[in-house]
């Protein structure tokens, strides 16, 4: 007996029931698209999360928890417990091995966006997504006292353009009753999208922060003119946190220990990568839940295949009897059912994967331009291929159930045609 042409029979048989088959395939395709979509967003979210800050060796702030320091200094979530004195900052900035530092002073906001008091070293040294540097979509860095540079989301959501004047408010709420409206800032630069909290930040100089708080933190700002202000010493008394870049990254651990045991005031230094993964272990629970839900959707798709095949089984008893009469072994009937199940799943999985990547390819430029989310995988990779294999294999295994039923039917029926 020659090789039984099972696969071509399975294909013809499925084609004969194309209505049900198409619906079944569609179910699997949608399940697969959903699962892959969730996976892509999950990886994209994780990547952009981990890409939020790089190139910085240490972040230094008042002593609290590492995650807390990371949240308020980089993600602008929550508030600092305490500040750092300018003297301490200067001391560490001038310590041997320190290549650069970027001071950060937080506490004000504009229309719900955080105001970050810093200087132009921020734009020079802040890195995200590997080694990418901040870029100016329009304009230039800070220069005059009341200059401000805004992130891409701030500009887009509030419809701001260069030359416009804005007022910052004390505190960090969206609605503030204390606005420093004596001292409006002029927008001199707008940053390109990064997909990081930088997009949602308003940057001003440390001196400006100092100036608007000269008459107490709750005032409307200072009434002094810019010339009068420039004549004063506006170097701040304290800052919220600062970023440290080292000449050699291996020195990070030693400097971290020195800062953590600093005697003059309670400080802590964190290594961004370590703190990021600590934070992700908290955030990641939601991500894993999402993945589990998506996996169950795929399982439902496979059960749909099972249902469709089991339903068709009775009306196909005569098909099985004919095949038996032609010399098919019970094993061939078994293989026929299993390969049908696998074939449906395979087709659905391939279509679903194609759909996912089609949408990604179409949407990638928009995502990059509008939200700065950079999708690295725009072609199916090993993961997708093995997922297709897994879905097909799982469906083949589920196919054992109708296959076993058909196998037993064909033994019981023999060549009798039951209609």
């Amino acid at each position, binding site marked *: *007996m*020659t090789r*039984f*042409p099972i696969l071509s029979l399975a294909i*013809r*048989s499925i*084609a*004969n029931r194309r209505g049900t088959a198409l619906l079944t395939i569609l179910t699997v395709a949608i399940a697969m698209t959903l699962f892959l979509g969730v996976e892509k967003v999950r990886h994209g979210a994780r990547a952009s999360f981990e890409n939020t800050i790089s190139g910085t060796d240490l972040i230094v702030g008042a002593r609290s928890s590492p995650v807390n320091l990371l949240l308020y200094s980089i993600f602008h979530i929550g508030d600092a417990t305490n500040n750092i004195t300018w003297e301490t900052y200067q001391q560490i900035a001038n310590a041997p091995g320190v290549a650069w530092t970027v001071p950060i002073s937080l506490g004000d906001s504009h229309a719900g966006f955080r105001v970050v008091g810093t200087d132009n070293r921020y734009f020079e040294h802040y890195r995200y997504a590997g080694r990418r540097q901040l870029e100016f979509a329009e304009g230039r860095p800070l220069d005059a006292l009341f200059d401000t540079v805004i992130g891409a989301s701030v500009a887009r959501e509030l419809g701001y353009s260069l030359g416009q004047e804005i007022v910052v408010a004390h505190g960090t709420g969206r609605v503030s009753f204390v606005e420093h409206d004596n001292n409006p800032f002029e927008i001199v630069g707008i940053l390109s999208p990064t997909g990081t909290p930088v997009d949602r930040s308003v940057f001003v100089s440390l001196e400006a922060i100092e100036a608007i708080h000269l008459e107490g933190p709750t005032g409307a700002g200072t009434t002094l003119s810019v010339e009068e202000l420039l004549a004063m010493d506006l170097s701040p008394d304290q800052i919220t946190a600062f970023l440290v870049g080292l000449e050699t990254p291996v020195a990070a651990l030693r400097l971290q220990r020195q800062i953590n045991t600093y005697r003059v005031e309670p400080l802590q230094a964190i290594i961004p990568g370590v703190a990021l993964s600590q934070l992700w272990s908290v955030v990641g629970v939601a991500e894993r839940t999402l993945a589990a839900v998506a996996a169950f959707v795929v399982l439902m798709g496979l059960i749909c295949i099972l249902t469709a095949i089991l339903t068709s089984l009775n009306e196909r008893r*005569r*098909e099985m*009897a*004919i*095949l*038996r*009469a*032609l*010399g*098919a*072994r*019970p094993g061939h009937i078994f293989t026929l059912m299993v390969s049908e199940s696998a074939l449906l799943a395979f087709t659905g999985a391939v279509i679903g994967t194609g759909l996912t990547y089609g949408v990604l390819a179409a949407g990638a430029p928009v995502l990059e331009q509008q939200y700065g989310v950079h999708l690295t995988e725009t072609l199916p990779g090993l993961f997708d291929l093995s997922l297709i294999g897994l879905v097909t294999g799982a469906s083949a295994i589920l196919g054992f159930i109708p296959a076993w039923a058909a196998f037993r039917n064909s033994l019981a029926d*023999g*060549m*009798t*045609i039951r*209609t």
Partner: protein
Amino acid sequence: MNQAPAISLEGVRFAYKRSAPVVLDLDEFRVEAGERVFLKGASGSGKSTLLGLIAGVMTPDEGRIDVLGSPVSTLSGGKRDAFRAERLGVIFQMFNLLPYMPAGANVMLPTRFSARRRKACAEAGGAEKEARRLMARLQLDPDRYWSSPPTALSVGQQQRVAAARALIGKPGLVLADEPTSALDADARDAFLSLLIEECTASGAALLFVSHDGSLADRFDRALDLSQMNGAAT
């Protein structure tokens, strides 16, 4: 031609389950090579069981069955399936055709499963040529019906396609299980004539089972299963 008898049963007993009653008890049953035999059997006479045993889909609890010289009652399951593919043609009461294949492909199906039948067709000029010849012989114009889906054919035409399929590749024995019961009188007579003619032409033995005794005189020999079967109710 094969000189061994087409079918030879001796002392065959069969029950579907060990504890179930015996449904078939045949002391002896023989069909000679090339012989055309009518077997009358009402429903419940054990005819389906007998055909299943001859085709090797089931094996007897006792006794010996030889088909075309092969001891099918002692062959392994796989060998019996292979034997059926190589040497037997089967025609059912109705719904003989795989619904997802056109008539021509249905006729050619056995040659896809059996090297021996492919070879027999090759000697006659190829499987498709042989299939077309058989269709023409059974008065189904191959040019017109080759690509017809089974659903587009009348029951009589379907049965003729099934007969062509059973006969392709020169099987030694054709088993027909009430193939005319779904046909009206005219179609039944036409089908019967064509089937007997073609079996004779290809030298195949024919075991034709039916409850309709009026067909019996068209055959070499007629038997009544109810009388032969010791277990008949």
